[in-house]
């Protein structure tokens, strides 16, 4: 349950901070959530990771679908030298996931022990 709540809160907080702050605010959001909702280090990492993997994966897929994937196709040619929208969406999700996972892991270590 804690795990699911962590994921949901991390995703929501990341989305909110990114409306005003740079992209790396997802690390801070994940950090804060992990510091407040106490879990093991591994679980914290995994919830931060999962939250942003889902958030960025969903957002990029959603935006790209409305665009008919036209731009993602072009960018995947520029960045990946191949025409594969899915890999680009995966890469986006992974970068968000790693950053947030690491933020959450760091946050998990300052949670006071009960």
């Amino acid at each position, binding site marked *: 349950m804690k795990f699911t709540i962590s994921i949901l809160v991390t995703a929501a907080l990341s989305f909110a901070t990114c409306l005003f702050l740079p*992209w790396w605010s997802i690390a801070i959001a994940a950090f804060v959530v992990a510091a407040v909702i106490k879990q093991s280090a591994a679980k914290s990492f995994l919830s931060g990771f999962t939250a942003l993997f889902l958030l960025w994966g969903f957002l990029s897929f959603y935006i790209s679908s409305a665009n008919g994937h036209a731009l993602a196709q072009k960018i995947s040619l520029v960045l990946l030298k191949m025409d594969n929208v899915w890999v680009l969406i995966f890469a986006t999700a992974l970068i968000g996931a790693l950053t947030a996972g*690491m933020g959450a892991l760091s946050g998990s270590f300052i949670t006071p022990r009960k």
Partner: protein
Amino acid sequence: MKIIPFLISTALTAGLVFLLNNSWKIGGNNTPLFGAFLSPQHGFWQNAEAVNSDFSDELSFPKLKGKTSVYLDERLVPHIFAEQENDAYFVQGYLHAKFRLWQMELQTHAAAGRAAEIIGDKALNHDREFRRLGMVYAAEIAVTEMSKDPVIKSECDAYTEGVNAYIKSLTESTLPLEYKLIGYTPELWSNHKTALLLKYMSYDLAAHEKDFEMTNALSFFSAADFEKLFPYKQDSLDPIIPKGTSFLKQTVFPVAPATADSAYFKQPVQAAESQKPDMANGSNNWAVSGSKTKSGAPILCNDPHLGLNLPSLWYELQISTPAFNAYGVSFPGAPGVVIGYNDSCAFGFTNGGRDVRDYYEIIFKDDSRKEYLFNGTYHATNFRVDTFKIKGQPDFIDSVAYVKLGNDVCPVMFDKSFGGKRTDNSKNYAVRWTAHDPSNELRIFNQLNHAKNYADYQAAAQNLRTPGQNCVFACKNGDIALRTQGNWPAKWKGQGDFVMPGTDTSYLWKGFIPQDEVPYQYNPERGFVSSANQKPVDETYPYYIGRVYPLYRGYEINKRLSAMNNITADSMMQLQTDNYNCFAAMAMPFILKSINAASLNAGEQQYFSILKNWNMRHDVGSVGATVFVNFWKEFETAVFADEYAKAPENVERPLESTLLEAVLKDSAWKFIDNITTPQTETLADNVTAAFKKAAISCKAAQLNGKLVWEKYKATHIDHLAKLPAFSRDNLPIGGGTHIINATRDTHGPSWRMVIELTQKTNAHGVYPGGQSGNPGSKFYDNFIDTWATGKFYELWMMVKGEEKDSRIKWVMSFTN
């Protein structure tokens, strides 16, 4: 708290963020900032415009004086209805920025010699050359001149405010895609940037003289050979102003210095521009009078041939104010409609192409360049010290000497520290260019947008100094006209064809052709006016106008228009996209007559039969066009390669028309013989040898599946940053050099327009691009297929009361 794991983990997190938040050099390319670039809320995903994106908006800016409504139609063309004229320019600036900001800034950075700030030291040579040409100096003079004109000043101020209103509204997520990809942010717009854009057009259209190349040719060939290779007279010339037109009496008499023949440099020059505007930057325009049209109303047509890029050079729009109502294409970066029509008349341009940039050799007292010799004494040089910011590197500082030659201040473009594409330059060349002279080019567009009749047009046109243009005009009252407008130096024969001595006044320009001696036509008897960059007048015109002009488009257009009657807009659209090659048609008889067909082997015979049966058209699917083009390339090599083998680098080569006209007149023309062999080659030998070589290239093309003309030519429209994913290649379109449809590989009709001035104007147009500069928008390149297939869009001059028309998809309102 677990201190050590916390510290390690936090450091790793910070390291990861650092890694993803910086640009890295991988394989010679700089990566984007991956974190920011891939973030769905900040990065490129934000530029992936929804296919059903809503462009409607309600905006308010205190600078506005009244209300402006912008109706965006289904092609994303804005119809701007403003209560106040200057508000319209504010909104135009806002829209230009909203849809084309990156391109506007890139073009003006390039014009200002600031490309290295964005792309690094590989652009430094370009940047130095542009600043040494005095591009920034010229733009500063233009801003001063514009500021003296209250109408243009307030127009420009409003435009700049509009651009900046948009730039200030940008956030990280709404930045144009290219800024995110390359990793920089836009700076604010200014009137100076608008002036830079206009100077960039001057560079593009009025800087392709061949002084260095011609001087090298003169130094290498005998005077007699030089005249043969670069004749002043062209046999097939059908000038813009028809032969037999009488000109006003000459009032300015340029006199050649006594030393002109001998002093003209007989040694090769060492400097060379590292880049030149495309020689083919030209265009077609014509207007037919009502006497030749089915409707009885004049029809005006224009298609400017320029480098084709994405985003396109042009942005289409309608501007409607209480004072005027104009529709057409504009330059993102400048206010007003440049080529288009209003409720009374239509207007368009082709390039004048005359030589208005000359080089003078300067003698400095010593290497410090502090003093230069002029009229026997040394004068103090002015220095302009330029700092170049270079991405990822320390600044570079260049000091450019400015010398005063007579009354003209000229930058010393080439000296010991800068030889253009040459590294071993030891001489100094100052540049005298009309684009440095005070002028107020925006006035012509302002006045044409407002023009109601011929007198208005005539007054408007005379504001255009550089780049000089053939300005075509047609009016609903039936008038048609064409002025070969520009600020043309009055030259003695040959003046400025070569680098000239700059040590005294004798070789300087002594004056300009007075505006009332500028050749023009107004309602000529033949019922049409036309221009296609050919020589504007024949040899009876009293002033010298240079020797490098393309012949054939003008020849063909005049021939067709003379023969046509009951002309309709449709037949004009057909003519504008016509693929007939009259150059090939003139050449074919001598080719077929001279070739030694018996000596061709079976494979060569196959291509020869294609050529023989060719219809002289460069249509999609034509193979004859490919064979002909390859043949002509080899034929030129067969004729000239031997004479040019030992020529200096950077030397001018004869025009294709010169070779054709020479062999048509004289089958034993001097250059036909190969001077490296003991025997004397004949025209038949050259033609046959060239054809055999062409057959080899054709075979290679055929094996690659590229024998059909459109694949061989491979027209492509590149993104300005040359990213293939943002470009369009292998467009199925015919045409080519010498052809009315002048579409080459990366160059061609950048806007096609046919305006029939019936009571309700019947207007059509198309350009190879799209209204949005965003590669993530469906409006990025959506006109290209229409353009490539020779089709047009109907242009809609919206009127009040049509606000509910089904063509309108979005409305933007601007208030104060």
